[in-house]
């Protein structure tokens, strides 16, 4: 079974430092998550998450400061409102909503960071690879469409994971 591929978007001030704290405490966690540093979790547009899935990620982790502790006062308030909507949207389009996890991790919470990563990696490991789900869904959709209308739109290949396509 292929290893889950996970991208974590971490805010610079709390969560990225929290990940550093986990490192300084030499806490061990699975290597699946690759961290992309953003200034604030408020910077993470829903589109960024969607593009990450489109690139083949099996899971996306969004970590920000605790509410009230945002380095930018209220950037994470946006995250708190935005991400649940995005999760609903994912669910609506047939993507398991648990592929996106949002957590608040402070700079001191190395232990929490490691726990979240461990749990999330296990959650994702229990799911089929994202690309498989999507292909399965598309085939299903195509069948349904051809059955209904007698003609099928071409399923768009959902792969952006080529080096130059950024």
């Amino acid at each position, binding site marked *: 079974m*292929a*290893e889950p*591929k996970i*991208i974590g978007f971490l805010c610079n001030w709390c969560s*990225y*430092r929290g*990940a*550093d704290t*986990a*490192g*300084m405490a*030499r*806490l*061990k*966690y699975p*290597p699946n998550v*690759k*961290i*992309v*540093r*953003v*200034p*604030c979790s*408020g*910077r*993470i*547009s*829903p*589109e*960024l998450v969607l*593009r*990450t899935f489109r*690139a*083949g*990620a099996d899971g996306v982790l969004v970590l920000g400061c605790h509410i*009230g*502790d*945002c*380095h*930018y*006062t*209220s*950037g994470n308030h*946006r*995250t708190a409102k*935005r991400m649940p909507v995005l999760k609903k949207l994912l669910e609506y389009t047939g993507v398991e909503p648990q592929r996106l996890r949002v957590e608040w991790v402070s700079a001191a919470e190395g232990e929490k960071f*490691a726990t979240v990563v461990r749990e999330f990696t296990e959650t994702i490991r229990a799911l089929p690879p994202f690309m498989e789900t999507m292909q399965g869904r598309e085939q299903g959709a195509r069948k349904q469409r051809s059955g209904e209308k007698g003609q099928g739109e071409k399923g768009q290949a959902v792969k*952006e*994971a*080529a*080096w*130059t*396509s*950024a």
Partner: protein
Amino acid sequence: MTEKIGVYVCHCGSNIAGVVDVAEVARWAGQLPGVVVARDYKFMCSSPGQELIQKDIQEMGLTRVVVASCSPHLHEKTFRGACARAGLNPYLFEMANIREQDSWVTSDKTEATKKAKALVAAAVSRVAHQEALEALLVPIDPNVLVVGGGITGIQAALEIADAGDHVYLVEREPSIGGHMAQFDKTFPTLDCSACILTPKMVSAGNHKNITLLTWSEVENVSGYVGNFTVTIRKKARYVDEAICTGCGVCQEKCPKKVVDDVFEVGMARRKAIYTPFPQAVPNYPVIDRPNCTFFLKGTCKACEKFCPTGAIKFDQQDEILTVKVGNIILATGYDLFDARRIPQYGYGKLANVFTSLEFERMSNAAGPTGGRIFLRDGVTVPKSVGIVHCVGSRDQNYNAYCSAICCMQSLKFAHLVREKTGAEVYEFYIDIRTPGKGYEEFYQRLLEEGTHFVRGKVAEVTNVARVPEEEDRLIIQVEDTLIGKQRRIPVDMVILSAGLQARKDSKEVAKLFGIACSADQWFIEKHPKLDPVATMTDGVLVAGACQGPKDIPASVAQGSAAAARVLSIIGQEEIEIEAATAIVDEETCVGCQQCIASCPYQAIVYLEDKGKAYVNEALCKGCGTCVGTCLPKCISLKHFTDEQLVSEMIGAMWAMNQFETEALEVA
């Protein structure tokens, strides 16, 4: 790919190299698109390590640099500096964190090496899209605003004024001095508070570089570090400061007496025209409008009749002042915990239960009893006194934190009570905390003086007697945890050592100045250890008890520290503003103004004439919340553009996909 990228993989001794195959990572990185050189080296952050990068930039004409080593929070600045020294814009550098987020957290060496490769691929992919940025330089206005005229604010103001820069010292009350002016003696040296404070107040009042604005409040703040515009409301005193000599005749002649619940905490009365205390700075009185007979009934004007200089001006209006400053120091202090919130301690119901501040006033020679210790009847000297520690502090029901000053304050009270009355004194404590110079010695002294220490949290203070000797006394019910028994100790007087808490309007004040409050409403500093007086808002500093409970020495130290920070900023004359700011693409902006609503700093304005949003770079802190909000993607954050973040993510994904394919091939 036209970029020439150099990749440097650090061993960090064995920190990284002990787990990650650094040579393999460097070899692998060498074949990534755009990479012209990839090296591994023992310590990249060392001088030879940095010189290696500089040499390659100069000799090979590198246009981008990636260092795979520790966290950017540790050495991003170091390597940016190395790039800059070699003539490469520092924003064309990127770091891959293969220590804190790889070698230190991954047990499996093969996996760690793979992860390092993926992180390097991400950084290489990102760096190719990075753009050169120039930090914006803005001039610094050398004037400084200090908010709060307690000992902290006075100290900060004096330090700055002595250095030759101008200070506006704003105080809400009619006089500067703050809580320290109310105290009697100061621990552990027992020197009188007024004796050490008054000279400083006078210096602040007379200083040619200090504009004292008492009876004033800040109403509005706009701008950014170096360039704040502050609106201050100078409330009407109804006294012309230019003419008033501070002779005090008006206060003598005023027929109206009012309970002074601010400075004398309800222990004494003052007149309707008053200075809070004799040594007030400035020494001009204030008319208490809601209590003044003239303002209430339209007749009286006794003060006006007797004023020898004609300084009383009943028609005076509030003044709105606008000042320009470059830096702001908040030293707004604390509120005392309201002991009424703990009904079982009886404050407000049982006459002889006092708060610590009431005791301070009573013990103060200039206070309502002339420094004598009496029960509430004003004549009876107590024969036994109980002092209750941690009132509202270290208590999950009220404030969980330790108020830091109450142990020492309570020890001081015990000493003063014994000195002045010879009464038996009982201290009821959870733990005695005396971490300060000379503090533990003071505690030892009190032990030797014969104060009784009872270890246990007081359950109740009551006047309901169970035995005849408890009649007409206050009984302190406590579990003495050292002997493991419940005790009832009858005393004549109880002093509640109430804790400190944040000002009740600290949240609004924080909002006004664009800083943040902790869950307990204290102002949050930039870093609890390494940057204790700065805040996340450049140019706004915090000092003293507004940041958390503090005694006088710590407050004064912070006042000086904040002043030093401000002076170092003023000394730079110009300040660099974060280059990673948001920018609006005017071509595509539809003027929906969603970004304006999302900005925590009011850094985005709507240009009415163009119908577009515009980012004030000096105000923008680069959080990117607007970018996450803008649906048509017309606003972007420099150094964290969509392109850069996506290419970083794609780089990591590409590497992970590669490893997966390789694994499949092997299988």
